């Protein structure tokens, strides 16, 4: 019996001097994989205009019905996106979202991208709804590059996105 006890304590002792597998979250954050599907971001073109054209195809593709898009017509003097249409409202309910990435696939302009942010917790249901302001990247960031998955597949973006690339 004593033998088993020592054997067990020995294992503990051995692991005390090994590099731990776990990290000290949240002080330490482990990098995620390139193709990790985290929180969505709405990207911009290099000229600062929104990529999203409010076509609602993401909402149509969404199997969890997590996305709400209310489109509107651009003010020609001060357009938010290229073309005539933009998303006046864009909301994703993160409690509903299953992070499947179908919205990303459906997006004709590569506007919505599932990024690497995974810290999504809320105190109430209402705050689980991410609005357009929360999802849209700042004007000087996050434009240009198609998401890595598309680069790997060497897929050409569909026409509306091509126009102004």
């Amino acid at each position, binding site marked *: 019996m004593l033998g088993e006890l020592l054997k067990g304590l020995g294992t503990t002792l051995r692991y005390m001097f090994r590099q731990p597998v776990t990290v000290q979250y949240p002080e330490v954050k482990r990098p995620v994989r390139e193709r990790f599907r985290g929180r969505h971001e709405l990207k911009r073109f290099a000229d600062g205009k929104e990529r999203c*054209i*409010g*076509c*609602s*195809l993401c*909402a*149509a593709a969404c199997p969890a019905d997590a996305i709400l898009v*209310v*489109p*509107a*017509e651009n003010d020609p003097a001060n357009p938010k996106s290229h*073309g*005539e*249409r933009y998303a006046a409202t864009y909301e994703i309910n993160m409690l509903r979202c299953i992070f499947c990435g179908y919205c990303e696939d459906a997006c*004709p*302009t590569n506007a919505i991208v599932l990024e690497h942010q995974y810290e999504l917790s809320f105190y109430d249901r209402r705050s689980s709804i991410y609005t357009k302001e929360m999802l849209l990247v700042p004007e000087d960031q996050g434009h240009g590059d198609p998401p890595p998955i598309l680069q790997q597949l060497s897929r050409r973006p*569909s*026409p*509306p996105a*091509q126009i102004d690339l």
Partner: protein
Amino acid sequence: MPDVTVTIDGVTIQVPSGTNVVDAARMAGVAVPVFCYHPRMQPVGMCRMCLVQIGTPRLDPATRQPVLDDAGRPVIQMMPKLQTGCTTPVSEGMVVNTVADEVKFAQRGVLEFLLTSHPLDCPVCDKGGECPLQNLTMQWGPGMSRFDYNDKVHFEKPVPLGDLIYLDRERCILCSRCVRFQDELADDPVLGFDNRGRNWMIISKSDPPFDSKFSGNTTDICPVGALTSSDFRFRARVWELDSRPVVCTLCPVGCNLSLDMRYNQLMRVMPRENGAVNDIWICDKGRYGHRFVDHESRLTTPMLRRDGQLVPASWDEALALVAEKLAAVRQAHGGSAIAGLAAPRLSNEDLYAFQKLFREVLESNNLDQRIGAPGEPALDDLGALLGPGTGSDLAQLGAGTTVLVLGADPEEEAPLYVLRLRAMARRGARLLVANLRPTKLDRSASTRLRYRAGAELAFLRGLLRALSDEVGTDRLTVKSSGLDQLRRALFATSLDDTAAACGVSAADLKAAAATIASAEHLLIFYGAEARSAGPAVVETLGALLALAGKAGQSNSGLIALLPGGNSRGALDMGVRPDARPGYAPLAQPTIGARDLWNAVQGGRVRAVWVAGLDPAASLPAARAALDAAEFVVVQDLFLTETARLADVVLPAASVAERDGTYTNAERRVQRSRQARPPIGESRPDWQIVQGVAQRLVQAWVATGAPAVPAKGPKDGKGARGARGGVEVGAVAVAENGGWDYLTAADVAAEIAERVPGYAGVTYPALAATGKPGSWGRQVNEAIYYDGTNYENTEGVGIKLPSLIESGRASLNLAPLPVPATADDRPLLLIAQPLAYDGDPLLRGSRLEAHVPEPYVALSRADAERQNIRPGDIVRLASSAGELALPARVVDDLPQGVALVPANLAGVGLATVQTGPRTRVSLVKVVV
């Protein structure tokens, strides 16, 4: 037409001769893709999408007989090239191949070409999701294009064709459906092609641009997203929409609509196929004029007047107050001191409940559907007495039918009838258009008759005289009286004299009478201008129908174009001072709208309940009377001028927010469904009425005070016939006195039981009237029209029999006395109804911009005599008052007539009118 046998992709079927290959293939269950072909229009073969291989039996040149092969089958000779299916009529023994490699190659080629300049901006296109070009490309297209994406021709993105329709020239495939619709069906040839080659484009040729009341239909039939509707622009994607079937209440046609809702918000209005009513079309008023349901000025809570201010209150408070006040008035002054006005756009259920409350609970017959303006003509009974008989279907009428349109401008009064009448004329019907001034319908008429202004009756007497010369009176088969007096009146003057009096030559009268006499079916449409000439005119129309032998027959009858979407229903339900439901006349005349305002001022009427009408806006007398009245209840959608004067304002649910049935001009009852929950706390009108009725009945049962008409419990409904038979079972008075409807269907069931003529018109029966037409969405999604969904799941509605047909009523032929007018002022003032007028229901819609500023239209001769130029202010003076308006000079208006748009906000026509027609003098105002 004899049938011909054709074989399409191995399927042998018989189709009527004259059918084209596309239609024949559809009957055989074979899909031939099309873009430009539309079965309601002439084929043009522009898009080349329907190319198919066609072969016909080889004929022996000597005998003209088919050559047979060894097996005895005819030898088929294929045509050397592919043929367009839409322009090729079938012939006996024809063989069609739609799946040959050659055909598929051609289809792929056509689509590749159509897409060379198509921008492929489907994600931002309003048509995306219901676009034939998308669908046909997926099903028949090549999948890849050999053209460089960067070589696409780009145009400036949408250009407004009019303010209702936007054109995206990049997307247009130049199928000309819109051009042909405007030319062939709408008769507003305002669209055309411009330029050529890659700059070929659709343009509007009219000023103002795209000036048509049917322009919205072009967006439905556009097979791409080139034409889009300005009020649905980028509102939603079509797959997010939920279509709810409703009936349009903006005019008496009763078009079937789909309200396309997203999250209970109205996104757009689409037509719903009903071959008997609107086919697959609607007018722009129906399409764009429903924005009122979402308008921010809708009333959402009941309001009570406290310290002179209207303040929000609860339903309980409001209904209790109404019941208490009405009970007090009835107690003190009797039921006849209460009057009710209900709008003829409310549903049958509302109107029935309204009159039931008045007749049975308040014991008042002071009901009306008018506001008491001097310009309102008498209520129309003949449209029900001699309405089109059972089984009438305008879609079936063509050759052999004569249609007389008298004193009507259907384009303004009931726009969709223009399409119906034109379709009938195209199928071979004779269209006689008689009017004192030209209207757009003249262009479609086979005979135009222009009588002198004010000579309607002389014209009709002349026509009747010519008809009786032609056929005598033998054809008169219906129950009638007064034939001798009529004959005396007709033969008092010679036809030539009558012709001279009305300004239509005797030969024309005879020719028109011959057309009427020889008709298999006779339909007579009459509108506001005919009705304004007095009841004698309408009565003579009835005599004309009866003498032609068409009274009470199927597909023959009178159709009155009344104001209000459910005027016929309101008349049927007895919302009128002189009759109970089902046209049962009252023994004693009561106070109608015409006398109401004086009666209020005189203290004979103390309390007024106004449902959906706005008398105060246009009638100073009504405003003063409502101010003076002891108690005023208004239930409406908006805080109208009348509502501002009310003691209690009750918010009503709009047509989109409640179930109901509506009776159209032909007396077809159709069901409209609830499209979304009522806005705020608003309630359907019948519920509001029931709320008051229940409180009244309970109060009286409790106090035992004035006796409520004894009534059996629910199953005993109808024991008391609508005509007032007192056959009451020995049962205790039910707690709610017959006011225990839970749904609109319960009210409809009681209507079916108690209103003569409505027997059997229940919701289940309406739902069982079958799937109309064959349009819908096709099984294989791509035959004619795989885009817009016109599917109708609600049935075609129930056509009520005319009263004469049911044998309960008889026709009085004796000519009504015509009041002599002593007024010798030179001009005849006629109020002209406009489609886009001051109707509060147009608020919030893009049609508001189409409502004209007030004006008076004068003939060139009259204007020149007084040196009036367009825009000059003129003063109209009658024996009643004066009115100053800017003048318009209209070339084709007859001399002696002044036309003023009726029902425009802020005209004050009532100040000058002495009746439906007013003699006025004209003075130019020199500034």
